[in-house]
């Protein structure tokens, strides 16, 4: 098994599934044991992923760099370790017996899988099918460790938090019902949730991801609606589900487009085992989406592509048809042009570099008929990208579809923690990161702007929320916005880095709030709390750690990741000044983040208790809940540390990710495949000295400084208002009543949607109903009446003629029978006589026949 340690992760994925099945079958009788089973499963998964990670590290080249000291000089060994997928594809065909391990020293080919639905379109490069496979690279490993660790802690926490569900009668004070406890059911769902998320991370193709995607969706539905007796809970569940459907529609449209044009949904290159002509098993590299969409550096025979194509290598090879004949026709000849309406797809198994260039006076042109390559419209590619991103928007609650996340707070707090920290919302960001190479520049801009808007809007709303969990929810939305923004501006590392760190401190915060709520007997309104510090010290302190981390206080994990984001944004803005907002909005939001987080902490733990009742009954939570808090707190501080810790850019995790970056983002001079749109950004971010004409200080220093500054402002503001009490929040509220209401109403998003989505839907429904009642039913009734008429006639015919015949037959038979009755005298002796007669007859007959015969 260990010659392909990817199976470790498969195992880690399947463990929760097993526990899910177990609990599904017998869980309801096991009570507390159910919790332990689920926890054990996910814990074991964590252990497995840890082993897998340790096995992976040697591959990642991160050690090498780490001993190397400063990370800039790591660039050189980087790129040969990171020969791109297309190159892999290229190298494959001339020497086929090369084993996976030899093939790629840098990236571990920890992959495997099978095609469970064979789909053969017959065209070259499209003879693939729906795949069930796994592909483990650095990102997967990191996600696995993070998810399993956080999930394990949350499970442990839940065993304490959900304890009251163990009793036979649970009084639901919000739904005013008495119901049976659902402790095992909770863990059943949790296990399924974990399985889905892990499978999502493990998958190597969009379709499998989509399946897990939907599984995650249904799990969130089940868990948010866990207290389904409460109307609000069931509504929230529906809202989450439906909102996600919108996104998923986009997702599947995008996937469909890709499938149609590229003939595969597999993201990375996969290796198939085939029998060649000699009948021996050889490994063939099946080019994945990326290496089909982006032009490789070499053709499929390993010879480098001609120099005229340099500007297209590693990018989408846009072409325009030369001849005016019907475009898209295979025989058409195309000319490369940076604004061409088509994209060349490298789906062919074999193509020669020189075929791409025809020296008939045209700079560079090709005809698919010659190369066996195919083309797809550029707009379709953009649409696909936006579609997939729409899916991510839905899952990670980005700007238009963010409304479901706050309502999702109706679920039990550990669920919120899991959704917000490790699983669901992370999925969106993860997918953007995973599918990054397939996004065109337009899509990236969309991502960036969506992220920017989201983070700003969510932060503003978070400012005024009083429900402790709602605040955290909006903070999550805003943080996700940060990540999206980072990814959009090419800060691939920054986005995922923040995803990882955020997972820890957000889990910490949620569990902390959960502990508070638990301690206050399900009181969630911060206005009723206050002064809880001396009641629950551990919770308070650990939450303080979380607050500091999210606010981006130095030496806390949030600091490093947020810095990275700001750097990416800054360098992007420097290169594309027209998108200045993409830096300003996050900058302001950092301040707001610090503000509302500290507001939350002050309101909860400091000052005078504002509700005696709550205060008296408040108590510290049991160890099962506090221990995870402490563990998470520890990680929230140290997860991003590197050496030296005070260097914001020495974070080990960041550099680890640095080595997992897609090839197209490496700004090295000799990397031909670099992305033309983002390369300068990355380059500037990493080697500002290469841009002498930019009149700005070194971006890291500048971005870090500004971020810290604004965070400090936010912190001071919060402290003055809610701790020292110099400013009276009430007064402020009256002053800016309109703004306050606007924020309190969450920018009226719900009303908006009610107007533009719900109401029209209802109206439409009414129209349909009317249509149904009058037209459809009218038709149906009409046909029914017609049928009645016809059948009346038919009936007459039936009665008259058919039955007439039948009855006639019957009567005849009856008559015959009545006549034959006389034979049946019922006298035993007559029967005997008949028997004897028959015997005589037969006897005579037989003897007569025999006589005839001879």
């Amino acid at each position, binding site marked *: 098994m260990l010659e392909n340690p990817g199976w470790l992760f498969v195992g880690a994925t399947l463990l929760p599934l097993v526990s899910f099945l177990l609990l599904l079958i017998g869980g309801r009788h096991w009570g507390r044991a159910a919790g332990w089973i689920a926890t054990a499963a996910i814990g074991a998964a964590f252990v497995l992923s840890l082993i897998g990670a340790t096995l992976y590290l040697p591959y990642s080249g991160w050690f090498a760099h780490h001993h190397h000291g400063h990370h800039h000089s790591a660039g050189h060994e980087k790129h040969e370790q990171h020969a791109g997928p297309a190159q892999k594809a290229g190298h494959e065909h001339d020497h086929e017996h090369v084993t996976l391990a030899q093939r790629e020293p840098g990236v571990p080919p920890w992959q495997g899988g099978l095609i469970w639905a064979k789909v053969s379109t017959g065209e070259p490069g499209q003879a693939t099918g729906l795949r069930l496979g796994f592909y483990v690279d650095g990102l997967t490993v990191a996600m696995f460790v993070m998810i399993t660790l956080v999930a394990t802690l949350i499970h442990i926490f839940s065993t304490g938090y959900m304890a009251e569900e163990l009793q036979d009668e649970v009084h639901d004070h919000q739904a005013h019902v008495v119901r049976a406890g659902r402790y095992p059911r909770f863990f059943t769902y949790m296990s399924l949730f974990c399985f889905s998320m892990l499978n999502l991370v493990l998958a190597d193709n969009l379709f499998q991801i989509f399946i897990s995607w939907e599984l995650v969706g249904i799990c969130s539905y089940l868990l948010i609606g866990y207290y389904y007796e409460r109307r609000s809970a069931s509504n929230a569940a529906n809202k989450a589900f439906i909102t996600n459907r919108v996104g998923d529609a986009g997702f599947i449209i995008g996937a469909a487009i890709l499938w149609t044009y590229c003939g595969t949904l597999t993201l990375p290159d996969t290796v198939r085992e085939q029998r060649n002509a000699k009948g021996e098993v050889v490994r063939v590299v099946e080019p994945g989406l990326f290496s089909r969409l982006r032009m490789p550096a070499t053709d499929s025979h390993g010879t480098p592509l001609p120099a005229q194509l340099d500007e297209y290598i590693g990018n989408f090879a846009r072409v325009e048809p030369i001849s005016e004949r019907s475009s898209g026709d295979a025989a058409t000849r195309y000319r490369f042009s940076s604004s061409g309406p088509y994209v060349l797809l490298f789906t062919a198994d074999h193509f020669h570099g020189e075929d791409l260039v025809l020296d008939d006076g045209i700079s560079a042109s090709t005809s698919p008929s010659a190369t066996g390559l195919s083309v797809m419209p550029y707009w379709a590619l953009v649409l696909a990208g936006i579609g997939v991103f729409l899916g991510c928007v839905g899952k990670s609650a980005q700007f238009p579809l963010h409304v479901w996340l706050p309502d999702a707070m109706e679920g039990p707090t550990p669920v919120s923690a899991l959704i917000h920290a490790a699983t669901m919302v992370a999925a969106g960001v993860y997918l953007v990161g995973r599918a990054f190479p397939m996004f065109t520049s337009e899509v990236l801009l969309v991502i960036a702007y969506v992220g920017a808007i989201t983070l700003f809007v969510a932060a503003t709303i978070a400012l005024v929320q009083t429900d402790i969990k709602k605040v955290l929810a909006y903070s999550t939305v805003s943080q996700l916005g940060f990540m999206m923004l980072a990814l959009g501006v090419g800060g691939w590392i920054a986005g995922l880095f923040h995803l990882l760190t955020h997972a820890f401190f957000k889990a910490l915060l949620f569990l902390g709030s959960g502990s508070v709520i638990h301690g206050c007997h399900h009181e969630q309104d911060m206005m009723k709390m206050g002064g809880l510090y001396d009641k629950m010290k551990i919770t308070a302190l650990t939450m303080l750690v979380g607050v500091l981390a999210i606010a981006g206080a130095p030496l806390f994990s949030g600091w490093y990741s947020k810095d990275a984001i700001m750097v990416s944004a800054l360098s992007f803005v420097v290169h594309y000044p027209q998108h200045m907002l993409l830096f300003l909005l996050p900058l302001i939001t950092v301040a707001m983040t610090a503000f509302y987080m500290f507001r939350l902490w002050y309101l909860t733990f400091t000052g005078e208790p504002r509700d005696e009742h709550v205060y008296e009954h408040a108590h510290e939570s049991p160890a099962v809940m506090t221990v995870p808090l402490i563990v998470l707190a520890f990680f929230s501080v140290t997860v991003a540390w590197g050496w030296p810790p005070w260097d914001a850019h020495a974070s080990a995790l960041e550099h680890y990710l640095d080595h997992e970056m897609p090839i197209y983002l490496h700004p090295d001079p000799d990397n031909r495949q670099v992305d033309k749109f983002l390369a300068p950004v990355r380059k500037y971010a990493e080697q500002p000295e290469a841009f002498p004409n930019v009149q700005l200080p070194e971006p890291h220093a500048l971005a870090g400084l500004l971020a810290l500054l604004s965070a400090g402002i936010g912190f001071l503001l919060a402290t003055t208002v809610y701790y020292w009490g110099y400013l009276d929040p009430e007064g402020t509220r009256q002053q800016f009543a309109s703004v306050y209401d606007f924020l309190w109403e969450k920018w009226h998003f719900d009303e908006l949607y009610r107007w533009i989505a719900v109401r029209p839907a209802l109206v439409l429904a009414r129209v349909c109903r009317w249509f149904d009642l009058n037209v459809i039913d009218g038709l149906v009734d009409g046909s029914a009446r017609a049928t009645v008429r016809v059948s009346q006639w038919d009936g007459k015919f039936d009665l008259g003629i058919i039955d007439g015949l039948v009855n006639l037959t019957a009567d005849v038979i009856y008559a015959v029978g009545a006549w034959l009755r006389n034979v049946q005298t019922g006298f035993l*002796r007559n029967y005997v*006589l008949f028997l*004897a*007669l028959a*015997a*005589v007859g037969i*006897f*005579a007959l037989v*003897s007569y026949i025999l006589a005839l015969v001879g």
Partner: protein
Amino acid sequence: MSVGDILFWIVGLMTALCAVMVVVTQHIVRCAIWLLFTLAGTAGLFFLLGLDFLGATQLFVYVGGTLVLVIFGVMLTATGPFLQLRAGAGEWAIAIIVGLLLYGLIALSWLFADWSKLPESALPDDPRQMYHTEQLGRALLGDTSVQPASELAGVPGSLGAADKASGKLQEPPKRQASAFLLPFEIVSVHLLVVLIGAAYLARAKRKRVVVAPRESL
């Protein structure tokens, strides 16, 4: 015309006559007596054929058992009017005609039958040299070696008999010999069933007298 033949003619005609008497007699009890003579006569025929065991069985089971039962039944049910239940003359006529027809056909077929198709056999003059019960018993117990092969096999015999020297089984005979163990068992089980069935059918239907409980004082 040997003594045996004379005896045969005497016994045989007596039997036939008694059989006819059974038919023509109206009085049921006398019918029974004629039947008794018929059966006894049949037994006599068997003895003449040298089938002592068969004859004895006929006497023991039929005459001594079955017929007693029949007469028992007669006496149980023979109250005045039923002694003389007459059939109509028409029925008589039809029955007799049919009977004669049947007999004629059978007799003709017997007379014109050609038995040469049956395997030839040298029959010893004294029939009693030919059979003894041991053979019969062995055959009933399924020993396929005792009997010559025949068409009228009851159940196909399992295998040829084992020769004593080497415990090897010999080749089964060409024409499958018959073993009667299975029919024997079936018949015995059948008898048991009949026993129970008869007991069930003939049991007297008694009315159960329900004694009303006396109410306590």
